[in-house]
Each structure stands twice: as structure tokens, then as C-alpha cells.
């Protein structure tokens, strides 16, 4: 027995039909489930040149291999499609309860093509799959729609259904929109919400109760118990958060930034990702003033984003399914300035950074409001923040005027104007309409392209490649460019991949650009990091499990026990390599030129920053490092196209002949 359900659900919205299809075992062996299964299916079935918002695009929802086996931190669900934002591979990932819900309906993944005539939602309870009218839900925000669906289905289903849905941003085809579950947790990136909106699919509602298989549940549970017991003991004394800013300042001066896996666990258990904000502001990791500023511009802002303040209003921690860590939380925000909601999910670091220092915004309270607005609208905070930052810089530099901004005085740190602009973006109203499709398109319309921070059309996550050149390689070499969750040197240091993989070099104590040369060793580091991330995604694992390191979150041991396999780390890393190569092949098939993904000049240090920890840094070796990374993957080092011999070595030639 393995952990796979062995089947997928295929839905065609145009004809209103669906069918269950068995997936051959060799596919699971080759790419697991989750993002791997999506890569295999989408590569095979989305025709070249398909319109991302047309009927030929396929929207996939998948659970990972380990979901439901008892393995901890494996409750992430993956969405994939051809991205309207980049024209190539698009994916996003989210926690909550939706991943086990897919499996409990009897599937590893659901693939949805076509376009419905009227708004619909897909209902599935493991016995039947039906398309039902969504007339009553279209127009509601994602949290309202989820609540309404729960209320309407109460007592009708045996199980409380799990709902993944779009908000107004996805309905209005905003190319920076995502898909939500659990009251606004969002699979945000790549414009996946617009694809769902283009299909007139408001929600996927799952209420199955099938058992989720596992080969050796006792061993899996024992591995989890070990991790759980360790975590229960890992508690920091309260109040340490006030010192994080000082730690960040210190890190800014250090030549390297060490990170141990257990530190991840401590930090995320105590505060969640939000604690990174006051660390990132002074250290050079977090972008300031549309990536053009320095910590000097926001001196003492790290105190504004002190994680203890945020913890103080936390009502309870929030855990994704199967997670003992619980980096999330529900916050009581009633009565805060600018706030019209009672509660919100704890804002992630990315949101705090993108609407804080990136915009020179000193109001933490306004970010609670923005967080809830974006989560309900189903709009990506990273892309939205980068787009607003561009608008402010253009306004400050006279490229945009009051008439164009509908009278909004878009000055750095003008909290009211930021709130109004985001409201307009969500409603696609006036000036906000042009910004709702991200910074690339906005700058094509209004100018100021040099201030538009995007890579291949997608806005980068809130970490600066000048601080970590390894991240810069991942930003551009990743088939879904601009994602910050594929690899970083800090993360590589925490993972200890050399202990499971024979060719992964030991981590080095660096994170800074000056000493990061282009070498074969470095290319193996970036390759190993990307392969392990893809493996994690195939397993449905959380990035923070990965960041705890292979000695705490034992992915290889988990997979062997859950699948009844006996493979070593090298074998599993090859699965990751295969998934990554398939995603790259997807881009090539869709006519996306991998070499066209480029870091914005600013992030290359052209011109270099005048002050702060990144003073004078340029990424002179960046392009050479990307070439070496491609070469290490067996892709052409000039074009990034996977070589025939690589495709054969990984068995992808045979795999893409397998049909489902």
C-alpha cells in the first residue's frame, strides 16, 4: 500500500461533466503527488499557446503524498495552472484544511478545464461530483462566501465541507488574485485566482469522508511523535521580541548569517513569520521604499513592527492541518485605527513588509486592515504591495499626477492614500483598475518601468537578493519567477541537505553578496535547494518543516514509511529534480523564454545603495550563477532549456507518454 488515492477528478466546466480517472502507479513513483502530479498533468494536457484565461487552461488543486498519513506539517494544498501573470508555469500553495479534503473525496488532485456559462461551484462528497449554481455567492468576499456555503450546506452533508473560493479580485480577473480557504488564508501567487474567475468557478466545496491510506502508519506516527515532543519543549521566554530589531542590526553588520533549524522552530512557534519584519528592516533582508531605500530611511521602524505587539492581540494560535507548530494566529483587531473588521489572520512577514517599510508606512494598525481586505478580496499581498510601491514612487517622481491617481496624494507613508488605493484595486475602480493586474502591466500603461519591480511579470517576495545572492538565482531560475519560497542561503544553512544527499555541498556561512562567487559548488547548492523544495511540494509539506532541517522534519523517513519504499535521499532528490525539470519544460512548451526572467536593475545593485548594510553591493556574478545553476540541472546554460539527455536521464520522455 502507498499513501496515494490513485485517482484524479477531471471536470470540464464547458460541458458540465466530470469523470474519475485512475493514475498509473509509475507516475506517483516518478513525481509523487501535489505539485509533481500537477506538473505532469498540466505539461501533458495544456496545449501550447493556450490563453491563460481561456477554456484550454486547466486549474489544478492537489494534496501532497504525505497528507493524511499522520506525518506532521503536510497539510499544504497546491494550485497550479498556466499563469496569466507570467504566461508560463503558475502555482501557489496554502495551508488550512483543504488538502485532506481533496483526498477524503477519493482523489489526489482535481483538474478543471473549460468555462462555465454562469457562475458555478463544484461540490464533491466522494460519491458524486456536481456543478451547482453559485449565483447566490458570486460577488461575496471569500470569507463571506465560505460562511454562506457552510450555512447553506449545514445538515445536508455528513461532514462540514471544506471550501476553497475566490473573492472579488478573482471574479474581476485581477492577475494578482489568489484562492482562499479557512477565512482568508490564501494561495496567492501566479494569478491563480484570475484563472478560477475566468472559469466562472466561485468555489470548490469538498465533503468526502474516505480514509486516507498509509503503508506503515505506526512508523509515521512515531516520527511525528518525536518531532511533536521536541516542539512542546521549545518555548522561548516571553518578551524577547523587542530585541529582534537589535539582532537585525547586528546581522546587517555580520559578514554571514547563520541559521539553525531549531531556530526556525523557536521563532515560528513563538511569533510566526511576522517576527522576521523587525529583523529584516535593519538587516538588509527586507526591501525599503520600493527596494531603493536603506534602513536609514526607516530608522526605528523595527520598533513599530515589534512582534510582541502583534502577539499581544492574538486570540489563539492557528495551525494548518497536521501541523504541531502553528505559526498562524487569529488576532482581535476590533477598535484599532483604520480598522473596520473584528478579527484577522496574523499578518505574515510578507504582508507586513510589503505594506510597511516597502511603502514607508508607519501604521501597524493599517496593515491589520489591509491584511483582512486583501484576504477577503483574494488578492496577493506581495504583488499588491510592490504595485502600490511603484505607484508611490512614480507619483513622487512626477510620472503620475493627481488627475491620474483619482486625486490620491500618493506620498511615501501616506497611510490613508494607501488604504484608498488598495480599495480601488480590489474594486477595479478608476486608477485601481490598471493596478489590479500587477506592476508590469501598470507600468506598461503609465511609464516608470524602471521602478516596476517584477521578474518575468511576477513581483518578487520580500527578500533582497543583494543581501542573499542565492535567492537572486532562485528568483530568476525558478519556472514561476519571483517566488521567495524556493531557496535561500539562510534556509540552505538550516536544512543540512548534505546529510541526506550525496552531492549536496555542506552549507557555507554566507548570505551576503560580496563573497558569493560563481562556482560549481554554489550551483550544486542552488540546485539541491530547489530539488528539495520540489520534493517537499510533491509531499505536500510546509516550507517551514523544510526549514527545521532534515534532522527534525524527516521527509525521507516519512516517505519511505508512508509509501512502503526503501529509497535513499539521492533517489528522492531526483524526484525533486524531475518535478523542477517538468515545470521548466512547461514554460518552454508555452513559448516562455527562461532567459527573459531577469532581476530588476535595482535588485542587481545598479545603481548600488548609498548606505546601510547593502551599501555598494552589486550582483556582478548573478548571470553567471544562473547559467551554472541551469548547467547543474542539465539544462542548456545559455537558454535554460532542458537538454534531451537530461529529459531521458530523468525518464521524463516516457513519463510524458503516460496518459490519464
Amino acid at each position, binding site marked *: 500500500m502507498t499513501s496515494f488515492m490513485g485517482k484524479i477528478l477531471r471536470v470540464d466546466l464547458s460541458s458540465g461533466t466530470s469523470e474519475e480517472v485512475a493514475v498509473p502507479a509509475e507516475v506517483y513513483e516518478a513525481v509523487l503527488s501535489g505539485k509533481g502530479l500537477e506538473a505532469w498533468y498540466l505539461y501533458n494536457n495544456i496545449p501550447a499557446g493556450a490563453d491563460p484565461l481561456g477554456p484550454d487552461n486547466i486549474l489544478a488543486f492537489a494534496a501532497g503524498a504525505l497528507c*493524511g498519513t*499522520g506525518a*506532521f506539517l503536510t497539510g499544504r494544498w497546491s494550485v497550479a495552472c498556466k499563469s496569466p501573470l507570467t504566461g508560463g508555469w503558475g502555482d501557489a500553495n496554502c495551508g488550512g*484544511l483543504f488538502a*485532506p*479534503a481533496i483526498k*477524503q473525496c477519493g482523489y489526489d488532485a482535481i483538474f478543471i478545464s473549460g468555462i462555465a456559462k454562469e457562475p458555478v461551484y463544484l461540490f464533491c462528497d466522494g460519491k458524486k461530483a456536481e456543478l451547482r449554481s453559485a449565483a447566490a455567492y458570486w460577488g461575496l468576499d471569500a470569507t463571506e462566501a465560505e460562511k454562506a456555503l457552510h450555512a447553506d450546506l449545514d445538515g445536508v452533508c*455528513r*461532514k*462540514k465541507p471544506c471550501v476553497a473560493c475566490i473573492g472579488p479580485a478573482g471574479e474581476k480577473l485581477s492577475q494578482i488574485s489568489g484562492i482562499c480557504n479557512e477565512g482568508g488564508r490564501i494561495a496567492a501567487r501566479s494569478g491563480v485566482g484570475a484563472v478560477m474567475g475566468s472559469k466562472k468557478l466561485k468555489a470548490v466545496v469538498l465533503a468526502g*469522508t474516505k480514509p486516507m491510506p498509509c503503508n506503515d*502508519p505506526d512508523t*509515521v*506516527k*512515531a516520527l*511525528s*511523535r518525536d518531532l*511533536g*515532543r521536541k*516542539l*512542546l519543549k521549545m*518555548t522561548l521566554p*516571553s518578551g524577547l521580541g523587542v530585541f529582534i530589531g537589535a539582532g537585525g542590526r547586528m546581522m546587517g553588520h555580520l559578514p554571514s548569517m547563520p541559521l539553525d533549524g531549531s531556530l526556525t522552530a523557536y521563532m515560528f*512557534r513563538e511569533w510566526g513569520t511576522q517576527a522576521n519584519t523587525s529583523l529584516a528592516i535593519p538587516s538588509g533582508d527586507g526591501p525599503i521604499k520600493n527596494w531603493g531605500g536603506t534602513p536609514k530611511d526607516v530608522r526605528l521602524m523595527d520598533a513599530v513592527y515589534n512582534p510582541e505587539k502583534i502577539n499581544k492581540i*492574538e*486570540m*489563539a*494560535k492557528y*495551525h494548518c*492541518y*497536521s*501541523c*504541531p507548530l*502553528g505559526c498562524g494566529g487569529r488576532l482581535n483587531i476590533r477598535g484599532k485605527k483604520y480598522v473596520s473588521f473584528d478579527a484577522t489572520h496574523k499578518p505574515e512577514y510578507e504582508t507586513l513588509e510589503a505594506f510597511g517599510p516597502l511603502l514607508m508606512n508607519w501604521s501597524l494598525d493599517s496593515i491589520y486592515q489591509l491584511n483582512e481586505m486583501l484576504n477577503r478580496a483574494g488578492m496577493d499581498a506581495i504583488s499588491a504591495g510592490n504595485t502600490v510601491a511603484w505607484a508611490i514612487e512614480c507619483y513622487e517622481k512626477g510620472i503620475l499626477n493627481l488627475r491620474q491617481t483619482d486625486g490620491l496624494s500618493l506620498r511615501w507613508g501616506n497611510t490613508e492614500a494607501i488604504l484608498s488605493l488598495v480599495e480601488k484595486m480590489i474594486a477595479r475602480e478608476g486608477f485601481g483598475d490598471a493596478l489590479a493586474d500587477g506592476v508590469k502591466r501598470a507600468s506598461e500603461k503609465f511609464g516608470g518601468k524602471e521602478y516596476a519591480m517584477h521578474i518575468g511579470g511576477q513581483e518578487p517576495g520580500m527578500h533582497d537578493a543583494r543581501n542573499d545572492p542565492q535567492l537572486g538565482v532562485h528568483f530568476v531560475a525558478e519556472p514561476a519567477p519571483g517566488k521567495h519560497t524556493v531557496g535561500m542561503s539562510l534556509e540552505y544553512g538550516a536544512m543540512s541537505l548534505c546529510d541526506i544527499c550525496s552531492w549536496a555541498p555542506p552549507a557555507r556561512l554566507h548570505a551576503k553578496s560580496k563573497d558569493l562567487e560563481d562556482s560549481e559548488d554554489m550551483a550544486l547548492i542552488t540546485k539541491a535547494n530547489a530539488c528539495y523544495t520540489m520534493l517537499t511540494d510533491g509531499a505536500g509539506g510546509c516550507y517551514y518543516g523544510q526549514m527545521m532541517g532534515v534532522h527534525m522534519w524527516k521527509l525521507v523517513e516519512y516517505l519511505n514509511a508512508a509509501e512502503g519504499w526503501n529509497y535513499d535521499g539521492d533517489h528522492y532528490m531526483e524526484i525533486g529534480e524531475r518535478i523542477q525539470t517538468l515545470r521548466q519544460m512547461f514554460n518552454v512548451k508555452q513559448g516562455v523564454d527562461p532567459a527573459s526572467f531577469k532581476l530588476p536593475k535595482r535588485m542587481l545593485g545598479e545603481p548600488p545603495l548609498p548606505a546601510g548594510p547593502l551599501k555598494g553591493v552589486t550582483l556582478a556574478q548573478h548571470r553567471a550563477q544562473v547559467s551554472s545553476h541551469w548547467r547543474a540541472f542539465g539544462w542548456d546554460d545559455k537558454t535554460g532549456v532542458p537538454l534531451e539527455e537530461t529529459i531521458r536521464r530523468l525518464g521524463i520522455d516516457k513519463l510524458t507518454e503516460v496518459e490519464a
Partner: protein
Amino acid sequence: MMKKTPVFDYLLCVSCGICVQTCPASALGMQKEGKSGKYRNLFPELVTDGCIGCGQCAGACPMEAIRMEERHEG
């Protein structure tokens, strides 16, 4: 009639929610407010009277935090 129902040891529980999603009768919810060490957290508890005493929640819990105990049902 005697029926078994789950009893939780919240000192061992890590709030992973696996038991809640496993329950075929949807009898459990992550609703009980409490503390895990110093952290405010939500814990699983019976939220309906639909428990059929199958013990699947206890079997699925990696932390061995659930015991099935006999309860007298009127």
C-alpha cells in the same frame, strides 16, 4: 448502554487537528480554548453528540493524546 468516547490529554496534544479531520462522524472540532505551555491555543473536543465510538481519532493521533473510555449513555 455502554459506549466508548474519546478523552483528550491536552498536555500531550499539539493541536495538529488530525483527529478532527479523521472523525467520520464530524463529531470533533478545534474549539476548546486552552494553553499549550504559555501559548493560547485551540484544542479538539466533542462538539456534537454524533460520536459513534469508533476510536479512529485515537488511532490517528500521533501524540497518543486520546484515550477511548467507556461512558454510560442514558
